[in-house]
């Protein structure tokens, strides 16, 4: 059972455009939703994270939108740059219990063309 579903699998955007990646989750106990960025040959690096008590969080060009009733959240990258080309993973965690392990989506390969 895939607990976090991510789409699209790949995305091509022109420089300056908006990149949007979507995730949906099933486990209502999840209450922490990070996005990780991974470059080839590197480990995932935390990009931005949100908790369900807010509907949106913005850090620079990166914004998370969160819809608790729909159990969906998305990452928006404004003014996308070629350096943003990487694989992006959404993830979820249950802070309240002992379920400290992250559950990841399958990833989105983003290519930003110059």
């Amino acid at each position, binding site marked *: 059972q895939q607990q976090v579903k991510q789409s699209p699998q790949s995305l091509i955007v022109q420089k300056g455009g908006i990149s949007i990646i979507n995730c949906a989750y099933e486990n209502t106990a999840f209450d922490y939703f990070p996005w990780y960025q991974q470059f080839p040959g590197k*480990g995932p690096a935390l990009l931005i994270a949100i908790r369900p008590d807010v509907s949106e969080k913005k850090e620079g060009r990166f914004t998370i939108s969160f819809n608790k009733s729909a159990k969906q959240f998305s990452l928006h990258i404004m003014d996308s740059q070629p350096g943003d080309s990487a694989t992006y*993973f959404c993830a979820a965690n249950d*802070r309240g219990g002992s379920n*400290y392990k992250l559950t990841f989506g399958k990833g989105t390969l983003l290519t930003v063309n110059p």
Partner: protein
Amino acid sequence: GAGVSQSPRYKVAKRGQDVALRCDPISGHVSLFWYQQALGQGPEFLTYFQNEAQLDKSGLPSDRFFAERPEGSVSTLKIQRTQQEDSAVYLCASSLILSGRALETQYFGPGTRLLVL
């Protein structure tokens, strides 16, 4: 200082060979996680340590997989009698503990890419 480090970065093993993968977490990070990342997939949880105690090993795919962290710092993931399906990147992550609970932010190492022939 430095982030999470892992060694070796690459490992080629013949089927049936035993391998040992090392993780050095960030200094002071009590929590340590191992994840397995298959090609084109997201990381999947293998096991979790708090100090030297292995509190969760529910993600280990078989009894050929074994992890230890004897002194609460460096951890080793051992795979016995490797099979081709074990080929993957093995990621280590660490995090702080606050009030007895692991904080959410996990810092990942670069991973060890294991290829079993």
